[in-house]
């Protein structure tokens, strides 16, 4: 693997740590969901607190990274792109946190007939963030591989969209058949969209990667 700046810089370290924390937020959401399915709201709230801590930590790392960008060896055009990328990656953890808060505030009894669907959607969003994590890590070592991963993020996000649409259709059907109340329907639809939004934000971040690759290859 080619390393562009010889040894690993602080920025590379922060960048990897940042995207790891963002990924940890998405994974933590899976723990939140487990308690949500079981209706264990005390445990759920503890996981939400932990997710918030991770999100805050990711914010701190991003700030440190941004300071390094101004001090470091990056060329001005690359610096701008990397700062934008860091902000876009950060939006992924914000999306995880937003989904967790929606679940925690709603505190609705989860209808078990939707469990598999929500597990699938959450897993797909996590997978998308996982690929984004690989993509960002590769930016400093292998641009071609990073580009391939960026396209993979897009594909995963599309798969997530399909699951999201399927769940929303199923929610509407359950609501019309009066299997779920209107308030539960709205809460679950909102949560579905928020979980789907995690992959959407990951895709937004990955969309920046081809720009960085193109500029670096000049």
């Amino acid at each position, binding site marked *: 693997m080619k390393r562009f700046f010889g040894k690993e810089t602080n920025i590379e370290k922060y960048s990897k740590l940042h995207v790891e924390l963002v990924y940890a937020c998405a994974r933590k959401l899976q723990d939140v969901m487990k308690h949500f399915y079981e209706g264990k709201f005390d445990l759920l709230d503890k996981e939400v607190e932990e997710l918030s801590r991770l999100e805050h930590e990711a914010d701190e790392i991003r700030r440190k990274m941004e300071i390094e960008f101004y001090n470091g060896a990056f060329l001005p055009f690359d610096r701008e792109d990397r700062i934008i990328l860091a902000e876009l990656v950060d939006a992924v953890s914000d999306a995880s946190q937003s989904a967790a808060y929606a679940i925690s505030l709603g505190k609705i009894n989860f209808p078990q007939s939707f469990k598999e669907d929500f597990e699938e959607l959450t897993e797909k969003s996590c997978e998308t963030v996982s690929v984004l994590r690989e993509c960002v890590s590769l930016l400093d070592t292998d641009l071609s591989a990073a580009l391939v991963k960026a396209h993979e993020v897009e594909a995963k996000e599309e798969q997530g969209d399909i699951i999201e649409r399927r769940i929303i259709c199923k929610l509407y059907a359950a609501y*019309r058949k009066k299997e779920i109340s209107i308030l539960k329907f*709205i809460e679950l639809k909102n949560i579905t969209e928020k979980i789907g939004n995690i992959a959407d934000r990951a895709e937004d971040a990955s969309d920046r990667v081809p720009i960085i690759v193109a500029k670096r290859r000049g």
Partner: protein
Amino acid sequence: MQIKNGKIKEAAHDLRFLLNRKYRKKNALEFVSNKYLLNRQERNFLARSVFSKSKSDERRAKITNIDEIEGKILIVDGYNVLITVESILYGDFDSIVLCDDNVVRDLKAVFGKYKFSEITEIALNQILTLISRYKPLNIVFFLDNPVSFSGKLAGLVMDIMGKLGLKGIVKLSKNVDMEIKAMAGREDVVVATSDSVIIDNVNKFVDIPSYFLNNKN
């Protein structure tokens, strides 16, 4: 709005005639407006208040008395109801029209430029107090997300609902019309709106501003 203007009355008569003859509204409106040399405001008045007899009859049949919301889910088309009630409370009757389909509409069309004002809280209080008298099971109060201050308004609606003991939620949405239409399919749902597109797609609706207008008169 010069509603009593003879020219507009005649134009409305002609437009109604053409619509009853199944002419397309867009073409008929343009034809009639050009004949009577109507300005933009007058065209807007005709577009929003004149309908064919069959369309008016169809919508009138869907109008539900407010006491029928008891024990039902009430979906409120928030800005649509709020803006019209605000105009009525302001006494801005120039823009308020009782349309062919017996629905009260505000023709100002300030929707995109809506501003939170000193009357907003009063209007919301009065709307939700009126609703609370008829004890709906749940309320879903929709607000358009892209409109300024929708977040602030959502908080205010939740506060008032809490004080009045109303059960429900405020939903910010980018596509209120579509969401209301999709949720209105159940027989235990009543929609509060004057939006023609929504009315044409729901089973029944309640015209909340008409209750304020009747009290004013």
